[in-house]
């Protein structure tokens, strides 16, 4: 019997969807509120989007976020690609299973633990060597926790790939490098894209680690929103949140579309 025919299935599903999306919808609706309260509706306006676009602090937070996310995405995707190749395309080596565990462990460790650990690590370096890499600290931290997210789809793609194709390339006089460049890499691109999109979104909206590691002047968008809601809130914050949400949805959709195309 199909689960959809179970009594009450439909209403439970609808309640779950409402709980998930109604708050988000309310947030988006109030970004168009002409009043200055986020709980009392007065009329429709776009002025909060206008003031968000003119807000210097928002600009600076967006800039920080993009610098960190883009760099972390590129570096973590490269690391994840190399790791995935090293763990699927070479002879099994001692500690392969352990390496797999180590790469995926960050997904299971509570983020606050990683955050505290990362903070202590940078404090230790600053204390011992007097080194502080400024925004580099954040980029480094983001790169590290993005790797497992980028790694997953890339590895899945490599494992799905028919190894015979690489044998065929070698049989047709392709050196290992040429076989990688001409066969493995082009076929891996959807996996890499999907891994990169995932890494970007994870870095883009990270709060916990960023909050602990960020120094002065390193406010990212999630931190900026957090700071704003501790003051009297205006619908401007709803507008900014809506923009963030749209960027996230865009990336998730791209990742999903790529994944679906590769499944065909």
């Amino acid at each position: 019997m199909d689960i959809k025919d179970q009594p009450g299935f439909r209403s439970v599903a609808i309640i779950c969807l409402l709980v998930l999306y109604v708050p988000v919808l309310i947030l988006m609706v109030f970004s168009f509120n002409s009043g200055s309260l986020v709980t009392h509706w007065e009329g429709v306006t776009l002025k909060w989007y206008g003031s968000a676009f003119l807000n210097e602090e928002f600009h600076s937070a967006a800039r920080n976020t993009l610098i960190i996310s883009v760099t972390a995405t590129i570096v973590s995707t490269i690391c994840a690609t190399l790791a995935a190749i090293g763990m699927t395309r070479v002879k099994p080596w001692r500690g392969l299973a352990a390496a797999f565990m180590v790469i995926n462990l960050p997904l299971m460790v509570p983020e606050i633990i990683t955050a505290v650990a990362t903070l202590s690590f940078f404090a230790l370096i600053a204390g011992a060597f007097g080194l502080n890499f400024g925004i580099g600290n954040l980029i480094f931290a983001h790169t590290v926790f993005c790797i497992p997210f980028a790694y997953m789809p890339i590895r899945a793609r490599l494992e799905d790939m028919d190894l015979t194709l690489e044998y065929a390339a070698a049989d047709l006089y392709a050196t290992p490098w040429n076989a990688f460049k001409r066969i493995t890499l082009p076929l891996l691109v959807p996996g890499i894209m999907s891994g990169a999109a995932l890494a970007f979104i994870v870095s883009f909206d990270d709060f916990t680690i960023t909050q602990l590691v960020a120094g002065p002047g390193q406010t990212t968008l999630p931190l900026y929103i957090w700071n704003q809601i501790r003051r009297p809130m205006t619908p401007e914050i709803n507008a900014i949140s809506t923009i963030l949400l749209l960027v996230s949805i865009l990336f998730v959709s791209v990742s999903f579309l790529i994944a679906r195309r590769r499944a065909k």
Partner: protein
Amino acid sequence: MPEQPGKNAIEVRGVRKVFGTGENQVAALDTVSVSIRENEFFTLLGPSGCGKTTLLRLIAGFDFPTAGEILLHGQDIAPLPPFKRPVNTVFQSYALFPHMTVAQNIGFGLEMLGRPKAEIEARVAQMLKLVKMEALKARRTSQISGGQQQRVALARALAPQPKVLLLDEPLSALDYKLRKEMQIELKRLQNETGITFIFVTHDQEEALTMSDRIAVMSAGKILQVGTPRDIYDRPAERFVADFIGETNFLPGTVVSKKPGVATVKFASSATISAGYPEGFDPTGEVTLVVRPEHADLVPDPAKGTIAGTLSNIVYFGTDTHYHVKLDGGENFIVRHQNSRSSPVTFATGAKVGIQFEEDAARVLKD
């Protein structure tokens, strides 16, 4: 069979291949030696797990032998990686590159060899014509049928003009009719290109119809190498006789022998002279093999060498199989080709005799 003159394309000398370590060691190839001549259609035939694909992979370079040499025109290629061997492979799954067109697939080998663009284009056009795929050259390989993919895989492997073409059960994914067509097509391609083909199959009929010579393999060893006729008519071992075609096995006792021919007595005390392979010395209780088409039914049991009761008649269109329960208890099949002028009819349950053609019976190692 004496070694015929002619240059060898591939010589496999004492090759062993062991997989696994320690207690889990399995010898996939147990000291195999074989010579494959130039311009020959050579088939490695055997059941799955006999080592035929392992041998092919060693020649292609996807695996390296544990011991022994593989010579290509006299040069040992066993330690070379696959991309340094002038040998190309048609894979069982075709392994066409899904992100390239048909033409790009065919040109890939030449491109990797660094041939000039004009030469690649000309050669690809020639190959497309050879396998009759000109119309589909711009298609992706996912947009063509299985039979067409097969042709592209062939063209791709032939384009760099390899010294030897390896074919790993390339027809097994095709349906019956297409397979028959491709068998003829493969023979034509081999004749036209003059390239040595090494063909791996478990299908004995395919091996018999296509090959110049066949090596029958079992459990990591080559049991017999010979022309299809040799293998079928003069199998060297019981396994070969059993694996290729249908065969009757009859128990008997050797009463006397001279070189190559033994006289064997049946339980019924009738005797027959039977050939036996070189290097085998049959004595005492032996098993005789007789092909079903090398025997004939006679209505009078006394006129046959052996006798029995007709238990079943199976009509196949081109021929009829008569299943005879021998007086000694064994089953024996006689195959009779149907023709309009042979209206001889037997009824099940009738007592019949079986006569053998001359040289029909052979004594084989178990």
